[in-house]
């Protein structure tokens, strides 16, 4: 059986902190190398924060759940399931490549980082919920 971490958190940023601690401990326990460990942490942070920031709206985050699973096999599979507003992050456009610091947008780079960190990055709707599945390579390409 593959090593797997499964957690369910509320759709609130403070819940994310405990999840991050659990993810780091899980990756360390299974001796995941620094680069894929970093990439998994980036993927979790970007996708969960994105879901909360853009999918929650004015609703209380404590009433919504985000399920996260991370499984280590030939790759590291990350699956995030939430009951927030349906949104396909894989369709988010790449960021504008600014020629100068004055022209550079402050944000909008999160999904681009997820694309860079993953071998595959997919979204689908399942019974009214968002499901994002991403795979991080265990060894450099």
């Amino acid at each position, binding site marked *: 059986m593959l090593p797997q971490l499964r957690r369910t958190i509320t759709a609130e*940023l403070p819940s994310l902190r405990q999840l*991050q601690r659990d993810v780091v401990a899980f990756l360390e326990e299974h001796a995941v190398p620094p680069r894929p460990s970093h990439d998994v942490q*980036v993927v979790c942070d970007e996708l969960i*924060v994105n879901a909360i920031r853009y999918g929650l709206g004015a609703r209380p985050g404590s009433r919504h759940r985000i399920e996260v699973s991370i499984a280590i096999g030939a790759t590291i599979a990350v699956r995030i399931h939430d009951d927030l507003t349906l949104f396909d992050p894989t369709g988010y456009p790449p960021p504008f*490549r600014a020629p100068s610091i004055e022209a550079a947008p*402050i*944000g909008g*780079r999160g999904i681009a*980082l997820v694309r860079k960190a993953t071998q595959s990055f997919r979204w689908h709707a399942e019974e009214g919920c968002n499901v994002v599945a991403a795979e991080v390579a265990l060894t450099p390409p």
Partner: protein
Amino acid sequence: MEVVAVESTNEVVCLELSGRMDTSGVERAETRFFALFAPRGVGTVIDLTKVSVLTSMGLRLIISGAKTARAKGFRIALVAPAGPVRDVLDDASIGDLLPILDDRAAARSLVQDAGGTGR
């Protein structure tokens, strides 16, 4: 995320960042970062050597700092040796916007030599 001013003179400021530059880390340390970053308006080194994780929230902080520096007329440089954090900076083309060096001494020389010229 922690922010420490390892040097703060009338010529140069060196800030050492450590820990997680992600959503939680940046929200916790952003106020301290800008309190240490902007007041002197002199060449500033932001050393990311001890940063363990860099996400788009961390990039947002860096770009905000770079915009502040440009507006106030002083230069900044990043220190990020090879590794996952440097890879994120490279993937996001941050090197097109501000200098990224491998060690603090080189970054310090660069921001001092450049004075207020910016990039």
